[in-house]
Each structure stands twice: as structure tokens, then as C-alpha cells.
């Protein structure tokens, strides 16, 4: 089972908190804050799982997810969407675009750990 998580999120304190939680749980966490260059980061250092915020500077998480699923190498890469927008239509859109899970902010730390573990197990 892979151990590399790429967190694409633009809020520094949330990045720090999630990175800390997952690092303590044994995952290697890479982070990226910009939507425009997120795909470059994915291609440069392919992760085993992506945690992807929806509202990012430059480009939305939905657009990035669409690009991820368009590339054969990442077609089955586990992606967990993270958003402050909990509306049903956003959840439906995320799942339709191929997200494996949709988590609404504010989340519990335990949920983050549990779903990362679950998605990694399902992918392996």
C-alpha cells in the first residue's frame, strides 16, 4: 500500500493541521497551494492519494479532478475532495467527475485519517 498523500489546499493553517495529522499516522504528505499548477505537481511527483480542495486560487478543484481523470495514469488514483461547500449539487458533481470521497469542512481529524486509510486500502 502506497504512503504518499498530496494535499492540494490553499489555507496554510489547514495544510499544517492535516499534514501533521497524517504524518503522525504514518503517511508522507506533500502539499501544493495553487490550482493553476496543481497538475504539474501531480505529474512531477505522482502520489498514492490526493486530498483536493474545491476552492483554490487560479483553478477549481473540480477542473483539476477532471484533468486527473482524463490522464490514464491517474484514472484510478484515489481522490478525496475537501470543501466548505456542502451543497448536494457539489457533492454530486464531485462524485460524477470521479472523486472517491467528498468531505465537507469543518471535518473531524479522525474522519480524515479513517478515509485516507480506507481509500488507500481500496486502491491497493
Amino acid at each position: 500500500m502506497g504512503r504518499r498523500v498530496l494535499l492540494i489546499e490553499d489555507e496554510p493553517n489547514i495544510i499544517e493541521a492535516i499534514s501533521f495529522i497524517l504524518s503522525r499516522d504514518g503517511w508522507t504528505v506533500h502539499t501544493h497551494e495553487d490550482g493553476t499548477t496543481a497538475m504539474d505537481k501531480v505529474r512531477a511527483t505522482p502520489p498514492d492519494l490526493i486530498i483536493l480542495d474545491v476552492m483554490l486560487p487560479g483553478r477549481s478543484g473540480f477542473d483539476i479532478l477532471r484533468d486527473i481523470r482524463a490522464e490514464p495514469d491517474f484514472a484510478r488514483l484515489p481522490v478525496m475532495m475537501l470543501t466548505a461547500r456542502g451543497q448536494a449539487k457539489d457533492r454530486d458533481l464531485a462524485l460524477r467527475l470521479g472523486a472517491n470521497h467528498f468531505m465537507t469542512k469543518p471535518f473531524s481529524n479522525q474522519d480524515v485519517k479513517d478515509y485516507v486509510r480506507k481509500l488507500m486500502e481500496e486502491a491497493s
Partner: protein
Amino acid sequence: MATHAMTGSRIRERRLDQGIRQADVAAAAGISASYLNLIEHNKRRIGGKLLQSLARALDVDPASLSQGAEPAIVDGMRAAAARNAHPIDTDRAEDLATRFPGWAGLIAAQESRVDALEAEVRALRDRMTHDPALAGALHNVITAVTSIRATAGILASDDTIDADWQRRFHININDDSRRLAVESEALVAYLDPPAQDTTSRDYLVGFEEVEAFLTRETKLLDWIEAHPTANPETLLNQYDAPHLSREGRTLLLAHMARFAADVCLMPKATFTPAAFGAQGDPAVLAAHFDADLPAVLRRLASLPPDVNLAPMGLAIADQTGALTYLKTIPGFTPSRYTAGCPLWPLFTALSQPMRPVKSEVVLPGQAGARFMCYAIAVPKTPADFSSAPVLETTMLVVSDPAPGPVEPIKAGVSCRVCPRAQCAARREPSAINTFS
């Protein structure tokens, strides 16, 4: 059935209400009982002295027999009936309004209130859904809460965190809590404007606020009539206008400036006699003052009632048909909150820009109220080669014109409350009883 045609029914109702025999009323009015019977069944039209005699015999105001209920109240009652899930006999709305004007007024007022509240709900829903400022503020609050929750969760659940990390997380929580306080205050301020702004919140759109202000502050336009070159901003500062919303104030200043320009071009002292001389014909007045037609239509509608021309209403709409100014007169009370009847010349003018439209319009029910309408749609922006013109349509509505040779347009207020079943412009079924 038109109101005047219901006069006989009203006479019969009054007589029966008072428990007087037909023969007694007939004798008091100097006619035979059989003739009164024909009148009461609307088989003979009456007016003049006979109407007054019958009114005297019944001890009622002749107008209450001939005119029936206030058309706006009957319209309001029909609109209220249209909301009802079960069919209501709307044909008798006028009877009800005539016999119980107080209750009818209450029904119409409550319908108007429900209409306004529904519009407010729609406006608030739109605001919640589409306002980027609100969405941004909520996002910021949730982001700060998320960060605090995640960081506090780490500190609360892990005793083995070293001192440097603990200090770092404490600082993060402190920063996020400050940010949350600021964002929360901004959000509360956004959702709950300060007390002095409450007056403006009584109006859903700034246009209504402007119209209400002009109705209340009648001397404002009189002052502009006398001083059309004065600065509108300076003038407005002299009025009790601090309760105007920012949007309302902006629209009012624009309205004042436009009115002042119309006055400069067509001063009341010369415009009023010219309007009489032209018998209110806008085209004649436009030629006389070398003014454009929309300005003449606005100027005619701005004349005070004491000028003695027929009552005149005015509607101005943008290219979508949304009303940006409305001066109502009895019988002409379109709603801002429901889509109107597309047959009004206000809207047909939009399909033929720059071409004046003159049409007589007759409304259903309510005494078949008739209006002569003068409308024209013109670009409100200067012509240029890079963009299509933005149109504005203006319609003057003159009450009770003399019958003309052309069949009037059979328009309505809105499809939902319009009884005309056979109408090419119908976009949705009517919720009230219809007729062909």
C-alpha cells in the same frame, strides 16, 4: 360582465338586503314593478334621473349602484382566489366587494401583502444563492472554523506533541480565532444592516423606494419644476432622506436629473397649455417642443391632477421587461413581482424599436377598464459599432379614452389571474375562472 351592466343586480341586492318589496321601490321611483324587474335582471340599462330615483328609494349613493367595487380591490380578490388550491367562484368577486367593501379591501390588502412577502422570499433566496460577497464571507468563516477545529483536535487528542509544535498550533488557533471574529462580524453586519437602514429594507427594489419617496415628498418635484438647473444632490440633502438606501438614493438622483432635464425642455408654464391644445397627443407635443417622445410621455405623466387632463399612468421598463419606473392609476396596477401581460404596448414596442405604438387596451372583468397607451422603445445608450444598443421602453397610459374605430387590445394583468381563455399570448393556465 362590465360593471355598468351589473347595475340591475346591485339594485336587486340592495333591495333584498333591506327587505323592501319590488313594487314599493318601483312606486317610490315612479316606474312599474315589471319595468323594475327587467332592470334588476340587467335587461334594461339605466342611468341619469332614474338611477338617482332608485338610489333615493333605496337610500344609497347612486355611485355605489352604477360603479360597483373599486377595480383594484376586485383584481386583488381575484389574485387571492388564484392562490387557492380549490376553485372559487371568481365571477362573484365584484358582488362580494360591492356588498362587503371592508372585507373585500382586507382580502385585497392581504393578497398584496402575501405577494410582497413572496417576492421578498424570492429576493432573499436569490441573494443567498447568487451573492458572491455572501458566499465569500461564509467560505471564510467555514475555513477559519475548519482550521480551528482541526488544530484544536490535534492539541486535545495528542499528549505527545513537543513544545514547539504545541506553541505553533496555539499561535495558529489564536490567528484563526481572530480571523473568525472579524469574518463573523462582517457576516452579521451583512445579514443584519443597522437600525437606521430599516426603512430602506421595507422595499424589495430601489425603484419602489424611489416611487414611495416621490409619493411622500410631493414638493420635491415641485421644487425641481421651479429650479430645474439646481444640483439634485444639494436639493436631496434638504429632505428627510437619510433613510434612503444607497441604491434608492442613486436611483432617485438619476430620476431627479432626468425630470429636471425634461422640465428644462418642456417648462410647465408652456407645456400645460400646449398639452391642452394638443389634446394630450404626444406626437404633436414632441414636434412642438422638439423633444423626443419618451421625454414627452414622462412629462405628460408628471403633470399634477389639478391640470385637468385625464388620469395618466406611466411605465418604464428595460429590455428584459423589468419595470424601472411605475406610476399607477386606478385600474392600471401592474406587478413588479409577476411577469406581466405581453400584449401591453410597453412590451410590443420593444419588438419594433424607435417606432411609436398607439393602442387602446381593455382589461377583462373589472368594468372592462380601458386605456389609451402610447409607447416607444429607444436606445438608452449612444450608438456605437462594437455593441448592440440597450433599449428602454416607455408607455403612457391614459384612462378612459373616447371609443375609437379600432378594436382595443384585450390585455390583462398577468396570465395567472387573467380570465381570457382564448389568448395567443397565454404562457400558463389561469388559476381563476376563464371565459372565451
